[in-house]
């Protein structure tokens, strides 16, 4: 598997809105949310959580030794679902499938259910190849990313160095915490968790915090996501039941929660639309509008001044910069 062989899979952004849209297309009743902290209160607010997705990339100058995470043991007899990552660009979708494959019972759209049935009993490598060969899945995945500007192809524009994040899934299976990493040969078993209280999340917190702590400060750029039940249907049902009691604190609280959740979905929908859209036509139309309004020359002159000042300022300040 070479880095250049994207096999038709485009690189996606790794944000909750993108993941949630993918889940919707897969027909599962879950969403993905940003996790800003692993504290019990933060996690409790998102329950039930089915899986945690840890995404990270190494800052090359600071993390020379990439194999800092040696905790746990390979489980060569894992009876659950595990697929290898056979195409780099598919990493986000592969992590999602690895998570979903271990949620039982799984309600999903027919295509995903068929894919799960088809891959039953396959070894991780074959399973991974089956996943990345599923055309419908690849199309759903690609639909999430910016349009490849076909008209600008062949110009050899320098690609900004977009190192992909790596995705690792943590979830409970058979009473233990498992780590599913598509680049490792087997699932990693991190030991049993106590079913009471926070349950598996407590163990997950320990393991993830240890992992983060094993890198020099600043060597790791990472993010955490929680794959959880979509809370809106239940909240709406409850609201219907409480209908009419405006003085009810629970009613008001619920209204606020629903309102917040809806705002978040609207923002995700906006971001997804803008991300998928080809903006070149808009850029041209805006420049034309500026010209018609007699403002284009001024804007250009200001831009030229701005560039000059920027270069001068850098000279003066002697800032050390990284190439971004």
């Amino acid at each position, binding site marked *: 598997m070479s880095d250049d062989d994207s096999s038709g899979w485009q690189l996606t952004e790794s944000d909750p809105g993108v993941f949630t849209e993918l889940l919707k297309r897969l027909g599962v009743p879950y969403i993905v949310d940003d996790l800003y902290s692993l504290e019990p209160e933060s996690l409790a607010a998102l329950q039930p959580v089915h899986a945690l997705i840890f995404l990270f990339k190494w800052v090359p100058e600071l993390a020379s030794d990439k194999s800092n995470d040696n905790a746990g043991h390979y489980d060569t007899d894992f009876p659950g679902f595990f697929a290898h990552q056979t195409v780099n660009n598919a990493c986000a979708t592969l992590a999602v499938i690895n998570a979903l494959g271990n949620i039982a019972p799984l309600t999903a759209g027919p295509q995903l259910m068929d894919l799960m049935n088809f891959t039953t009993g396959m070894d991780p490598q074959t399973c991974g190849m089956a996943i990345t060969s599923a055309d419908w899945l690849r199309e759903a995945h690609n639909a999430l990313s910016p349009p490849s*500007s076909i008209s600008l192809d062949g110009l050899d524009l320098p690609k900004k160095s977009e190192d992909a994040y790596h995705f690792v899934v943590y979830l409970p299976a058979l009473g233990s915490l498992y780590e599913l990493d598509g680049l490792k040969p087997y699932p990693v078993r991190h030991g049993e968790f106590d079913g009471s209280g926070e349950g598996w999340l407590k163990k997950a917190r320990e393991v993830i915090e240890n992992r983060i702590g094993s890198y020099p400060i600043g060597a790791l750029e990472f993010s955490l996501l929680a794959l959880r039940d979509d809370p809106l249907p239940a909240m709406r049902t409850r609201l219907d039941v409480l209908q009419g009691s405006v003085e009810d604190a629970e009613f008001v609280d619920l209204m606020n929660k629903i309102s917040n959740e809806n705002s978040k979905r609207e923002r995700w929908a906006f971001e997804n639309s803008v991300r998928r859209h080809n903006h070149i036509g*808009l850029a041209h*139309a805006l420049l034309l509008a500026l010209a018609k309004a007699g403002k284009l020359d001024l804007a250009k002159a200001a831009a030229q001044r701005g560039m000059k000042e920027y270069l001068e300022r850098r000279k003066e300040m002697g*800032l050390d910069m990284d190439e971004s």
Partner: protein
Amino acid sequence: MSVPLTDSRTMMAFKAGRAFRRPGTNFVDASPVKGAIVLSKDESYLVHFMWKDRTTGEVAEDLILFPGDAKFEKVSQSSWGRTYVLKFESSDQKHFFWLQDSSTSRDEEFVRHLNRVLEDPEIIPVWDVSEPQASTSATASSSTTAGATPEQLAQIRALVGSMTGGTSEEDQFSLTDVLTPQNLLPLFHSHPDLLPSLFPHLPSEFLPSSDPTPHQMAELTEMLQRTINSPPFRASVAQLDRALRTGALGGFVRSLGLPESAGTGVGAFLAAIAEQARQEGGTEEQMDED
């Protein structure tokens, strides 16, 4: 020599190997690997001092240098005489090199030009007026030292300008600085009659199925404002800017109703749009005779 248009402009290059300090000593051991020191400017006009392995082509070192911060000095204690060190005002870093050109006759010239560029990257090193491209195989041409005449400099600038396909001072600005909220939001406010020409270019999910009501117009205006503020929009503009700098967008710009000349650079693109605005009528743009 092809001048890379899109990412960097090579300013000079000469054969050199690296040398490394023997730990715990003051000795510096030369590494035999054949290499080259390459000085270039990137799309942000920053100077890169790179060392490239001539066998593999790999750029093993890439330092961004600030004007006046670095100097390339001869290491006097080296009996062999061709060892140099790159040292900095801003830090204790030292990088050692040894010159690898089989002839020593151009050593002094290379080092002198290198130091002048490190001091002030705006300087265009004048090698020889008749042959502006440095050639390591050429015999040392009559020295053109610090005093190039204004005519010679103008000649060089014109040649460099033509080599880089029109990326002249004219184009020293970025489209991303033109299509800013600071320029666009007041436009939406002052010329609402132009908004209907913009809405159709928004994501189709935002557009109503029939003529927008006043309420929908307000919503669309808000969507437009949010869109121009979004990272994907800014990324598209940056990409368009980079593509225009290749000078090779002639075919593409026709799809926008512009002439092929509009695809030769950022300045040309804007000039063609200004003309398009005039032709479509209703422009308040002053005629810019240049």
